[in-house]
């Protein structure tokens, strides 16, 4: 057991910090700044931004502060466990604060110091990187944060979500946990990371990466996936009519994941791609507009 998650810095970083130390440290840091600690969402998503704790909560003007770990699934990024830094599932630490505080950049820097990174010894840069997700009608302005040349976070001021101009601007900070851990542990291979003192990333995830890569690229049933897409999409439409917006949004997330799987299988043609993406977008925008109490709920109006 480790009594203190933050260790004094060794040669190049807090080299003894495990992934779970990192998570606990960030949780403690952001909880102390008023964030409610959410738990990972239980539907597959490609990014922490897509979970309801972010997607719905940014739509209105009410203050909101949350922080959570979210496993992010990107089926096409799988490499059968053979690539030292590419995986089809990684972990994000997501922070959403609305309205964005004036000293948010300072808070973020403090969170890095809190991990035992002596910023005076490193080159930390905020490099322009704006974010856009047409599938959920969202975009924002911000940076990728580079630490000695390694991208460790995304820092974004949301401007629009679900096709809606946001009345109160949220700031989103997404730490790439594996990236950050590789920096802290000075590891060149993701599978050499320590999740805890006794459990390595390899123990925990290597088999999963191998099997899911095989599923994503080779075994996923194309016909069944297409049927699922149709089922989830129709269900989303039906639920939207019934004003059951959170379940409807779950169906949209499922559509999105099924789409990603079909894409990894190379089963989507040009015209189909366009059609499926706009189908999801239309549903998501309807959900967002209804949730925000907008009258123009057609789903087309908010396209950017």
């Amino acid at each position, binding site marked *: 057991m480790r009594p203190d998650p933050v260790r004094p810095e060794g*040669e*190049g970083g807090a080299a003894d910090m495990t992934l779970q130390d990192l998570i606990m440290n960030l949780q403690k840091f952001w909880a102390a700044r008023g964030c409610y600690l959410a738990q990972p969402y239980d539907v597959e998503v490609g990014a922490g931004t897509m979970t309801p704790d972010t997607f719905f909560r940014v739509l209105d*003007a009410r203050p909101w502060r949350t922080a959570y770990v979210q496993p992010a699934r990107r089926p096409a990024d799988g490499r059968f466990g053979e*690539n*030292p*830094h590419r995986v089809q599932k990684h972990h994000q630490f997501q922070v959403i604060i609305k*309205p*964005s*505080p*004036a000293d948010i*950049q*300072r808070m973020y*820097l403090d969170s890095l110091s809190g991990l035992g990174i002596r*910023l*005076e*010894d*490193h*080159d*930390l*840069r*905020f*490099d*322009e990187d*704006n974010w856009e997700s047409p599938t959920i009608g969202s975009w924002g*302005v911000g*940076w990728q944060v*580079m*630490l*000695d*040349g*390694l*991208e460790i976070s995304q820092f974004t*001021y949301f*401007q629009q979500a679900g096709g809606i101009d946001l009345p*109160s*601007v949220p*700031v989103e900070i997404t730490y790439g946990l594996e990236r950050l851990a590789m*920096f802290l542990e*000075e590891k*060149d291979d993701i599978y050499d990371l320590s999740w805890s003192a006794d459990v390595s990333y390899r123990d925990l995830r290597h088999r999963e990466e191998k099997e899911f890569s095989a599923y994503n690229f080779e075994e996923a049933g194309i016909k069944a996936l297409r049927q699922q897409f149709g089922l989830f999409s129709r269900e989303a439409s039906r639920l939207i009519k019934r004003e059951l917006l959170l379940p409807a949004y779950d169906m949209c997330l499922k559509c999105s994941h099924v789409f990603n799987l079909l894409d990894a299988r*190379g089963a*989507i*043609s*040009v015209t189909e*791609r*366009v059609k499926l993406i706009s189908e999801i977008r239309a549903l998501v925008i309807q959900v967002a507009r209804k949730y925000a109490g907008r009258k123009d709920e057609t789903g087309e109006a908010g396209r950017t």
Partner: protein
Amino acid sequence: MSDFVLEIMTEELPVSHVLAGLGQLRENLASELHGAGLLPEGGVDVFGTCRRLVAKADISPRQSDRQERVIGPPRSAAFTEDGTPTPAAQGFARSRGVEVSRLEVYETEKGAYVGFTRTEEGRPAGDVLPEILTRVVSGLTFPKMMRWSDNPFRFSRPVVNLLCLVDGRPVSFRTCGLTSSDFTFGHKIFFPERKIYPRSFEDYRDSLRTAAVVIDPGERRARIEEGTRALLDPLGASVLADAGLMDKLVYDIENPYVFLGSFDEDYLRLPLEILSTAMREGQHLFSVVKSGRQIARFVGVADVRQDDRGHVRKGNERVLKARLKDADFFWQADLKVPLRKRAEGLKRVVFQEKLGSYADKAGRLKKLVVYLCGKIDAGRTKSEAVAAAELCKADLLTEMVREFPSLQGRMGGLLAERQGLSRAAARAIYEHYQPAGLEDASPSAPLGAVLSLADKLDSIVGVMGLGIQSTGSSDPFGLRRNAHGACKIILDRRWVLSFGRLVDMAFGAYGAKLSLPPAEGKAAVLDFFANRLRFIFERQGYRYDLVNAALGAGIDNILFARLRLEALNALRLSAQFEPFILMAKRVNNILRGEPACRVNAGLLVEKEEKALWDMFGMVKDNAAALCARGEFVPAQKMVFRLQPALNAFFDRVLVMAEEKKLRHNRLGMLQAVSRLLLQVADYSQVVVEGEAAGP
């Protein structure tokens, strides 16, 4: 003079936004200060980093007093003949609070009026500045704007502090949700909290330097260059020049330190393009070359000085190692798949939602390059051009381009060469995205130029054919960039071809995919190109009215448009030029609103009109032949020869004769002259002295 300094402190601005902001500060602040009588001489100097936009000026401590005339009733109404003030004069004086005895008489354009002179006392700079600063700062615009917090204001990135001092004393103004202060902050890592209270601009600059911020971009650039030389001179090496990367580093880093790193020599088996891209993108590192060959080193610029443990160098080396390992893997894997096989997959890559796939695009490019090769006398290479068109987009499917999109084209060219395509075709693929802008070089060989022009025009025609336009600051699908590239290629290559027909071909290749009818689409594309050419020529420093005169004669032949412009520019100072312009305008004016008329030589009555017609007959054939060859200086000189005959004609012959037949005959003759002139240039667009600017 007073020392004025303004600093807008923000979160990290992209370099293009810093440059946009500083440019506007310099212009707008100078013009506002000047307008307020606070900037009697000199301008506004600007400095900046990604975290601060800074303006400095020597301003007047107060506005000078202004004399203002207040005009009242006309003299005739204000005074009787013997000079007694009337009730009108008394009323005017009373309403303005002056004695009647102060009224004076002023001669104005409308006659003599009474009034008085009032002295408007100048206000101190500190009183005038707040309004100006609020207007200038809130009026700054950026390529992409954002809001933050619950703020209604928009800026490039959140504004965190405003500082404004005149002679060290704070000037308070409000904008972006902040009230300006008399302090600033230094480097965000080393001096995060300490407030700096400058007493002057010099003090501001020097205090920031001690707080690890160099505000002068020139000084930062020099430091990077000197630091690089100090590291590389001993190795006999230098960095691979990269102006874009240099600019980014100059502005991204407030306190630059250069460091040297290395990587495994095995990776030198990768092409230079790939190595340098892997280093530049993501990590912003310079490649190092010695005698033209890459060596296994890199130069980076960091915001901190390196200690002996070299965290920054080691961190960057570790990241680069992983990137090069990936790049090497991609390169080896991509080499194994023939481009022709890759190209089959283009069916599944979207070019544009409504315009279909890149396979569709490749099909259209084939038609366009065949057409173009015929037009520019590159017919022998037609088969190579077709092969390049078929394969030029195939690299979009390589792992390498997926990882480094900026390698598109170049990656295809590298693979094509290694997979045995002809050198010319491989080169064409390599260069077919060039030029990326007006500063970039055109493809080095005709084949690449053909392919690039076809590709750009196909994109423009497709997007505009869907009714999409570029407006204001938005340039959807890089329409302007593509148009600039297309124009540059034609001009650099000096190609003589009908642009209108090329546009027709491009529309034809799309078949029924486009939403605009071809005629309407073509008109939109030609209009767009005329505007782009105007932009290009004016940017090169040509007078706007000469540009209009050149473009007014048509842009079907883009090269000729420039040759016309060069000719106009060359002749603009000649003695014949202005009189001829005035004559040409006279011809156009008299023809305005008149029906088209025919000339019947038998109806020529007066000596002068016969002479003009004879002269016209001689000039016409010569000038037309010269125009057809693109020899516009002699063509212009040729039409100048009409001048004496036209002068005599206007002096002695009544164009608007009573008799309709005669009148129409004379108008017809002038119409023929006008048509001929329009082949040379649209002289009506030229502005001569004493004339109102612009049409």
